[in-house]
């Protein structure tokens, strides 16, 4: 009885929820402006074996809780070929604190070592199918493609890094780096909605 879902063919403000990538799909490249003013793309990453793409923002408390862990992840995995790219997809008219200027301020305050880029047109978040912040897409470069290896959360305790018992993203990265299959390919976590541009 409880498994019986009622399907109603309506959806409000839930763009891109059903679409987007699954693990195994090829992710499209993008070219987005970084907080330093330079353009960042997957193909432009030097010596990269892949990338940790995280849909992020300035305002979501879950993102804020993970910022230090994102910095540590980039510091650990960039030299192994997996730099982190944080993408802010939020519309700054809907969420003014997520403006490009505020991104620059946040990046400076936190001294982000990773690229923090603005998906102003929301094309990247739509093609990837990101539905919340933070939302991780781990990509591995295979020839000239970027194949999705893991989608989901960073770990299983946003509140307290020392209480984490499952490091989902690190486990996936370590598996990919050692040429193994990622054991847990998708996870879910509570996060903030994407602030979509109003039509």
């Amino acid at each position, binding site marked *: 009885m409880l498994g019986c879902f009622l399907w109603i063919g309506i959806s409000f403000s839930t763009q891109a929820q059903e679409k987007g990538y699954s693990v195994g799909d090829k992710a499209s490249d993008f070219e987005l402006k970084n907080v330093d003013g330079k353009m960042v793309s997957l193909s432009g990453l030097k010596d990269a074996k892949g990338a940790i793409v995280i849909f992020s923002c300035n305002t979501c408390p879950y993102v804020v809780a993970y910022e230090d862990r994102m910095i540590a992840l980039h510091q650990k995995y960039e030299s192994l070929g997996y730099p982190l790219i944080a993408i802010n997809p939020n519309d700054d008219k809907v969420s003014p604190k997520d403006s490009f200027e505020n991104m620059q301020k946040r990046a400076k305050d936190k001294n982000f070592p990773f690229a923090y880029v603005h998906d102003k047109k929301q094309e990247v978040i739509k093609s990837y199918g990101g539905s919340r912040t933070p939302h991780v897409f781990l990509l591995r470069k295979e020839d000239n493609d970027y194949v999705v290896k893991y989608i989901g959360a960073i770990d299983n*305790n946003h509140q307290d890094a020392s209480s984490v018992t499952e490091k989902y993203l690190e486990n996936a990265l370590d598996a990919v780096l050692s040429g193994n299959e990622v054991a847990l390919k998708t996870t879910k976590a509570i996060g903030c*909605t994407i602030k979509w541009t109003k039509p």
Partner: protein
Amino acid sequence: MKPIPKISVFAFILFAAWISTASVWKADGFKVIDFDEFESITKTPSEKIRMFNFWATWCAPCVKEMPDFEKVNAQDPEVELMFISLDDGNKTQRVQEFIQKRGIKAPVFLLDDVDYNKWIDKVSSNWSGAIPATLFISADGTRFFHEGELNEKQLKYLIKKIKQGHNEK
């Protein structure tokens, strides 16, 4: 063996359901719960369409839609609203102050379990984890899930559709 009268079976089921959830329902206004307690609340039989609205004090779109949910809950006797807070379980004061300040009438349960991947799919496989989000359960146990904000008009439309779905059975 003497057949058990139907009425006593029914009474027993009601009693069992009451026993299993009494600790939850005794509290009025606000209570911190774990996921098992949340599930037992959702499984409590009800003649109404129950709306479990997932929110947090820091979530602007959540806070924005709460008055619309309270309004519809006050107008429609066939629905029953419960707010499920996903705020920090160590900072319950923040939620209690919010309830007081905003005059929230519907019961508020703070679901204190940050191991989200363990339970999000149990609420709905259609939930990505973003909030606000609302789980609707009709009297026959049919579930419908909506992720994202709802205004009064959209909420009423959804409830109407759920009622129609129920009547068609």
